[in-house]
């Protein structure tokens, strides 16, 4: 099967925005009437904006001193209340904000400071960081993930460090397995496109391709921006829709599929760290009563979407979910899967379930 990828991409870069962002309502991939002209152009991350603002070094210093004081005043209050960042971490973030926003150079023998946002906006941004607990990644508009710098914005889940390992798992599996390396992969619920881009780079130039799906039009547009930034338009295809819905045409043909679906039990949502609970999209976090709604949905569909020998990897909430999923796949889908394993993240938490379709 040969997919024609490039023509489709452009349509997905200007995807329709349904006014009701409910998963079910977006499931069908039936041709819809022309979308209302709401621009979904992703926001440009700070570090990619042109350095058109200027400031004197004393004004910049004044802002920095103010920002430091604000960060220091936090102490460990956030950490104690909801496991949020402490001052040390906030001060490091401040340095990174300066890295992203300030360009210092020498012009005509004079130290020259150029900013990618105005100084007023810098005050506003840092206020948002501390007072509103807006995630740092939304402040600067990007997340450093693996060797990538991915554009992120509100409405898109910020890729987590743990999730980097999924790409390593795929890397290990395709090593020396041409059938898998040159095959078709899918990343379901791609968000910023992180895993899809990571996998595309691991597959290399062998002809392997990745379909990345997401329900959220914002996610699709942000992922499209990131895919393009890494020049992977010919390798990664974006499809809008819920889980397996946009993949009907490739059933039984995937060499592998991965997902980091929402897995937090609904009860836990209200107690989440402020950065997560108040700012990140609930649709990407809430996995239903026991957090397993979407994971189970993925497990059920795995056997029919994968080709024989195909590989899957899911991120989970931890040991309990991992165990449950492995048991489920062993018992319910008897005989369909082999080499099921549970893999811990670097913190030692049982984080991933992987396996192969027989």
């Amino acid at each position, binding site marked *: 099967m040969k997919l024609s990828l490039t023509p489709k991409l452009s349509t997905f870069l200007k995807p329709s925005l349904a006014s009701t962002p409910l998963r079910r309502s977006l499931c069908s991939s039936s041709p819809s009437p022309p979308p209302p002209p709401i621009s979904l152009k992703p926001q440009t991350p700070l570090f990619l904006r042109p350095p058109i603002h200027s400031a004197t070094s004393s004004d910049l210093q004044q802002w920095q001193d103010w920002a430091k004081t604000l960060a220091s005043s936090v102490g460990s209050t956030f950490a104690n209340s909801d496991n949020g*960042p402490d001052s040390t971490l906030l001060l490091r*973030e401040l340095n990174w904000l300066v890295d992203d926003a300030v360009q210092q150079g020498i012009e005509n023998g004079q130290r020259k400071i150029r900013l990618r946002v105005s100084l007023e906006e810098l005050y506003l941004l840092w206020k948002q960081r501390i007072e509103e607990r807006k995630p740092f990644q939304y402040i600067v508009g990007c997340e450093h*993930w693996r060797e990538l710098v991915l554009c992120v914005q509100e409405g898109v889940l910020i890729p*987590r*460090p743990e999730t980097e390992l999924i790409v390593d798992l795929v890397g290990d599996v395709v090593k020396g397995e041409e059938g898998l390396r040159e095959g078709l992969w899918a990343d379901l619920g791609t968000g910023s496109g992180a895993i899809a881009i990571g996998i595309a780079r691991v597959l290399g130039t062998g002809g392997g391709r990745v379909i990345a799906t997401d329900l959220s039009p914002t996610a699709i547009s942000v992922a499209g921006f990131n895919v393009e930034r890494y020049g992977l338009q010919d390798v990664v295809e974006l499809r809008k829709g819920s889980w397996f819905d946009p993949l009907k045409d490739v059933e039984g043909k995937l060499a592998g599929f991965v997902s980091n679906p929402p897995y*937090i039990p609904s009860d836990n949502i209200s107690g989440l760290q402020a950065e*997560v609970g108040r700012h990140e999209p609930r649709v990407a976090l809430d996995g239903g009563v026991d957090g397993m709604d979407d994971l189970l949905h993925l497990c059920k569909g795995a056997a029919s979407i994968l080709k024989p020998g195909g590989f899957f990897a899911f991120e989970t909430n*931890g040991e309990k979910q991992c165990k449950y999923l492995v048991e489920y796949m062993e018992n319910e889908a008897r005989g369909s899967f082999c080499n099921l394993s549970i893999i811990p993240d670097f913190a030692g*938490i049982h984080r991933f379930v992987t396996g192969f379709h027989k």
Partner: protein
Amino acid sequence: MSSFLFRKRASSSRCWGVLCRNPKAESQFGNLNKPPKPQNVTCAVEIPRILDPGSSSFSPKTSKTLSGSLQNIKNLIASGESFGLSSNLGVPVVKSLCGFHGGIATCSLVRFYGAQAAQEPSTADGLTVDRILNSEWSIMAEDESDWKSHAAAIAQSVHLIKKRLQWKKLLVRLDMLSVELNKPDLWNDPVHAGKISREHGSLMGKMKEVKAFEQELLEHVDMIKLAREENDAELESESMKALLEMRRTSKEKETQALLAGEQDPCSCYIEVQSGAGGTESNDWAAMVMQMYKMWAQRHGYKMTVVDEMPGEIAGIKRATIKVDGEYAFGYAKAEVGVHRLVRISPFDSNKRRHTSFAAVAVTPILGDVSAHVQINESDLRIERFRSGGSGGQHANTTDSAVRIVHIPTGITATCQNERSQHQNKASAMAVIQARVDQLEMARQTQKNAQYSQSLTDITWGSQIRSYVLQPYRMVKDLRTNYEVSDPDSVLEGDLDGFILSYLSASLDKDEDDR
């Protein structure tokens, strides 16, 4: 007196031909260098043949051909093989060249000297670098236009450079390596052969550079004498300028020669760890780290913080920086050891005097990837550092610090300053690699302690320096007794005095040990 010199000025190229001595003058000046040993007959026959191309083009075109052939001869002498000589039996090159007059080789003038004078080129009138050194001409400021002063300064640098290169040892080692290289079965072990040939090449390069430098000095001296005899003011000022230029570069070469170790040109990691004593010690460790950051900045090195573990109240418990740039390791290795601070602690409400310690370790980052020790993935334990809670989607954090433990050696590295976990891991892995490499090198050094420069204690060494802020103010290096009465400048990274004095002293010590 000018008759004894033959010169030709290449009119267009502003180059100078070589001075050639009139046979008549030979007796007059030959005495100066009376050969202590009888002529080596084999050589007397060999030399003219080898010189032949040089002599045919001798009716001077440019000095280029000549110095080219000169170089050939020196190479041959240096390798010691083509002549069937041991390398310590060379020829005074300029002199032997001068034995040709107008393109006719006068064999009788090709002279050979025993080991004593063997490697020393000389001027037309028999002045050698050693002689310049021994004449104790007074060295005046650079702007004093006196050739003797310049020459003496350069000769002194050459002397220092040779000392720092451990010249005699180097020549012996070069001989050994040449013998080794000539063994027919050498390449049966390509790794060993590669090592031998690399070392040979590197030592040979150093030796040639010094020789060429000496040669240049003598040529300029010849020129100046000549110019004076012929009242050629232009030539004299040109040569004087050249001498001055040499005098300046010789200072740089002196420093370079201090850094002759195999790993000296590498970048490095500098790690500072605070001693026992809580906040006061942590603060001291932070001051020491700051000192190195500023030192690196002064040198134009690129500095990145790899790992920093802050103290509870102030300062750091531990920190690692990466210093990128030429000879970073060569200099920084002089800082390995324990640094002691005496001051009235700002953290003591009773204003008592405290003594604190901070330990410094320096690890070279090998540029040659093939020299790296292979590390097995299975020997590593990788941990998320400072993790807590459920992680995953529950947590939004920009903290992705990673700790890696190399289980067989117990070496640990942490990195938290990169913005992604993947890169923190890569960065920590690079530290692990450098430390494992260093450990392996130390093992090798112990195994064959023949030539390798005495690596000072590579782990946390003993106390090396004392910084006293109260009751008096002084920084003193306990190894060299080098001291400075302005601790602030030192703590602001002005360390080169300490570093250079230590490096010279440790070479002198090596010299004495022999």
